[in-house]
């Protein structure tokens, strides 16, 4: 199970997912609206996830 903090909901969930894309699909989150971060490193959609990963889904900030 991957532990995911979803910033928009200020909530942590546990979910089984093999890649970032798989994770976002299961959470029904549009990949273009978040940055996926693991251990302070940005992940790409095809990056693999491992059990016990701690993932953060951060909102994209674009105001100016």
């Amino acid at each position, binding site marked *: 199970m991957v532990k995911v903090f979803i910033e928009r909901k200020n909530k942590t969930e546990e979910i089984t997912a093999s890649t970032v894309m798989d994770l976002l699909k299961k959470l029904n989150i549009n990949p273009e*609206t978040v*940055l996926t971060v693991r251990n302070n*490193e940005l992940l790409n959609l*095809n990056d693999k996830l491992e059990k016990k990963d701690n993932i953060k889904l951060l909102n994209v900030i*674009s*105001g*100016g």
Partner: protein
Amino acid sequence: MYERQISLIGKESQLNLNKKTITILGLGALGSNSANLLARAGINLKLIDFDTIDETNLLSQSLYNYNDLKKNKAETAFKKLKEINPLISINFINTIIDDSNLDLLKSDLVLDCTDNISTRLLINEYCYKNKIPLVHSAVIGYKGVIYNSLDNQPCLSCIYKSFSNEEKCETFGVLNTIVSLISSIAVNEVIKILLKENYEKALLRIDIKNNEIEKIKTKKDKNCICCGLGESISFKTYKLCKNETSFIITPLKKIQINESNLKNFKIKEKTNNSFLVSYKNQDLIIYKNGKIIGNNFKKDIINLIYENG
């Protein structure tokens, strides 16, 4: 004027800064705060914005006051900055940046203070192709980010993908304190880059509600549409003017549109390089090079045109 800065960076670096010109794109909250700091630091400026000042801007757009309402931001900023530092060269351009005038960005560095991802990705592509350092800054609510895209750093398109559901400062709100903080750090990064000092490689993300600073390591996306091999997103869309429903779409690869692409549309007029068409009571200008100008962006229109190519 620069004595107190010279005592830290040295006279040679100050002279170096005095020779540099940077473009500030967007003279809103981040742009006006950053321009103020950069002008005082002795850096020549090119200011670009199409917008005018309204009362809600006065919370965080530090160059403007009540007497400036309805005036053009770039021109007003120019006048204020000239009073602050008459020793530097400042130019202003009242325009919206699109793919027809990207050369206006030519300078020693571009500071991105725009307010939407589409424009940010457009200028990222120009800066990447022309090897112009890009410092990206953005804010919303209690949070802000800064990222330097130059040298072999992943470009902005490796990080952000084009999307339309953005949270806007107009609707979500923003604190002037985060604006001030993010502007200060962004300007500090600009100066480091201009002086060829060690600049921040990570994506800096700051949350002043919880006083948290994150340094997020970025990496190149091999499918990036700008610096990678990606072609998955075949077009870019961005606002044409203040009216949010107007758009221009530019394909990211070479395509050729002819009448056979437009069988789902009613062709009302045609010229050597474009068609005026109608679709569901909506007029669009479609250029033979694939550029589309219209109102009320709908993805199905794009698919109809490009997928019939």
